[in-house]
C-alpha cells in the first residue's frame, strides 16, 4: 500500500463530502428534545454543559437581480447579525422583524434555517457538525495510516516483528482486513491493488462510528446519508473500473441464457449495478441513525410515563427500564460500529471481487470449481 493512494483517496473523500454534505442539513425547529433533531445534522457542535460551539456558515447565494454571490461567516450568529440574513419559520416564510429580534434575544437562532433577506441560497456549503466530524475522522485516518506506512516502509512489521502496543493493535486490524476480507473476496492475484481502499474505508467507518459514541460531544459522521452515499459511490466507481470483459459480458449479454429472456434479464442486471451501492449506503446510514433514535426513544419512555402517570412512575421507569436498556443498546452499538465497518468493507470487497474476477474456462453452467467459489455463491445470494 502506498501513502500516495491513501492521500488521493482521502482528498477525494473530503472534496466529495464537502460539496454534498450539508445539502440535507436539517434541525429541529425549537429546543425541545426531539429524536430526529438530536441525531440530525446541525450548524453547531453541542458541548451541552459548557455551551454550543457555532460552526462556520458558507453560502452560495443568488440575489434578487440574478447575480451569484458567496458569503462566509464564522458563526450563524455573525451571519444573522450582519444584517444580510434572516431566518425562516416552520412554514418556510421569512419571519417578521419583531419575531427575528425575539429569536435572537432568546438565542434560538440555531434552530431556524438562515436565509438571505433578498434572493435565495443556491448551495449551503456550511461546515455542519457531521461534516466537522468527517474532517476529524479523515485527519485521524491520515495520521494513523501515514504513521503505520512509515513504520512498514522502514521494515518494522515486515522484516522484524511490530513494536509497541500501538503498532501491534493496528497490525491486527490491517492483517484482518487483508486476510479475512480482501484475500478471500478478491482473490490472491488482485487483492493488493484494492487493499489501500479497503483499509481506508474500514478505518474511516470504524472511527466515524466509534467517535459518535463519545458521550456528550460525539457526533456520528456516518449517520448522514450523504457521507455513506459518498463512500458507496467510491465502491461503485472502483467496482466499475475493476470490471473485466467477462463482468460486462455477464451484464450486457448474459451467456447461456435463452434469447427471449435477455430483454428481461439485462435491465435487471443494469438496475442491479446501482442497487448494490444504494444498499451499502442505506445499510450503514440506517444502522448508525437507528441506534441514536432507539437510545433517545428509550430515554423518552421515562418522560412519556412521567407525563401520563406522574413523577414517581416516571422516575422508577427511568431506573428500571430506560437506563438498563440504554446501556444494553449502547454496548450493542459498540459492537455494531465494528460489525458495520466490517460489513461495508466486506461487501465492497465482494463486489470488487465479482467484477475483477477472470473466467479462465468458459463453462457457464453455474459450476465454477475455482478459487472464488464462495464469492460466487454469495453473489448469487445477493
Amino acid at each position, binding site marked *: 500500500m502506498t501513502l500516495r493512494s491513501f492521500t488521493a483517496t482521502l482528498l477525494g473523500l473530503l472534496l466529495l463530502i464537502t460539496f454534498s454534505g450539508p445539502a440535507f442539513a436539517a434541525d429541529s425547529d425549537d429546543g425541545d428534545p426531539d429524536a430526529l433533531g438530536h441525531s440530525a445534522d446541525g450548524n453547531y457542535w453541542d458541548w451541552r454543559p459548557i455551551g454550543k460551539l457555532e460552526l462556520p456558515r458558507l453560502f452560495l447565494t443568488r440575489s434578487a437581480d440574478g447575480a451569484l454571490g458567496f458569503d462566509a461567516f464564522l458563526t450563524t450568529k455573525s451571519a444573522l447579525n450582519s444584517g444580510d440574513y434572516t431566518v425562516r419559520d416552520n412554514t418556510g416564510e421569512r419571519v417578521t422583524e419583531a419575531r427575528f429580534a425575539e429569536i435572537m434575544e432568546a438565542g434560538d437562532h440555531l434552530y431556524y434555517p438562515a436565509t438571505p433577506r433578498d434572493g435565495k441560497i443556491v448551495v449551503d456549503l456550511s461546515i455542519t457538525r457531521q461534516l466537522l466530524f468527517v474532517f476529524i475522522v479523515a485527519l485521524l485516518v491520515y495520521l494513523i495510516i501515514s504513521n503505520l506506512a512509515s513504520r512498514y516502509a522502514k521494515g518494522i512489521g515486515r522484516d522484524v516483528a511490530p513494536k509497541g502496543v500501538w503498532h501491534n493493535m493496528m497490525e491486527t486490524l490491517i492483517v484482518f482486513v487483508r486476510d479475512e476480507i480482501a484475500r478471500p473476496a478478491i482473490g490472491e492475484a488482485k487483492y493488493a491493488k484494492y487493499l489501500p481502499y479497503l483499509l481506508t474505508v474500514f478505518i474511516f467507518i470504524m472511527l466515524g462510528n466509534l467517535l459518535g459514541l463519545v458521550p456528550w460531544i460525539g457526533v456520528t459522521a456516518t449517520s448522514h446519508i450523504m457521507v455513506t452515499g459518498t463512500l458507496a459511490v467510491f465502491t461503485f466507481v472502483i467496482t466499475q473500473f475493476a470490471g473485466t470483459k467477462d463482468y460486462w459480458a455477464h451484464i450486457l449479454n448474459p451467456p447461456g441464457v435463452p434469447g427471449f429472456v435477455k430483454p428481461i434479464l439485462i435491465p435487471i442486471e443494469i438496475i442491479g449495478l446501482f442497487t448494490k451501492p444504494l*444498499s451499502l449506503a442505506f445499510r450503514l446510514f440506517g444502522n448508525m441513525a437507528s441506534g441514536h433514535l432507539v437510545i433517545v426513544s428509550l430515554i423518552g419512555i421515562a418522560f412519556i410515563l412521567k407525563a401520563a402517570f406522574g413523577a414517581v412512575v416516571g422516575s422508577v421507569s427511568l431506573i428500571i427500564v430506560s437506563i438498563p436498556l440504554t446501556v444494553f443498546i449502547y454496548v450493542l452499538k459498540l459492537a455494531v460500529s465494528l460489525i458495520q465497518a466490517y460489513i461495508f468493507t*466486506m461487501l465492497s470487497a465482494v463486489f470488487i471481487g465479482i467484477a475483477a474476477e477472470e473466467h479462465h474456462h468458459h463453462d457457464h453452467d453455474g459450476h465454477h470449481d475455482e478459487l472464488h467459489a464462495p464469492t460466487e455463491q454469495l453473489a448469487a*445470494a445477493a
Partner: protein
Amino acid sequence: MEPSGFAYLAAGLGLLGATLGAGLGIGRLTASAVEAIARQPEAANDIRGAAILLAAFIEGVAIIAEVFALLFILLK
C-alpha cells in the same frame, strides 16, 4: 381519516412487514448457521463469515423498508 394519516399508517404497516420478514429471515439463518457449526466445528470460521454477510443482506432489506417508512412520514 386525514390524507396524511395514511402516510403514518403506511409507514407503520410497512415497518411491521419488514421487521417480521427480516426477523424470520435472520432467525432461520442463525439457526442453520449454529446447526452447521455444531455439526462441523472445524468450519466455524467460514460459516460465521458467510452468516454475517448474509445477515447483512437480509438486514439490508429491512433497512431499505425503514428508510422508505421514514420517507413516508417526512414527505407526507
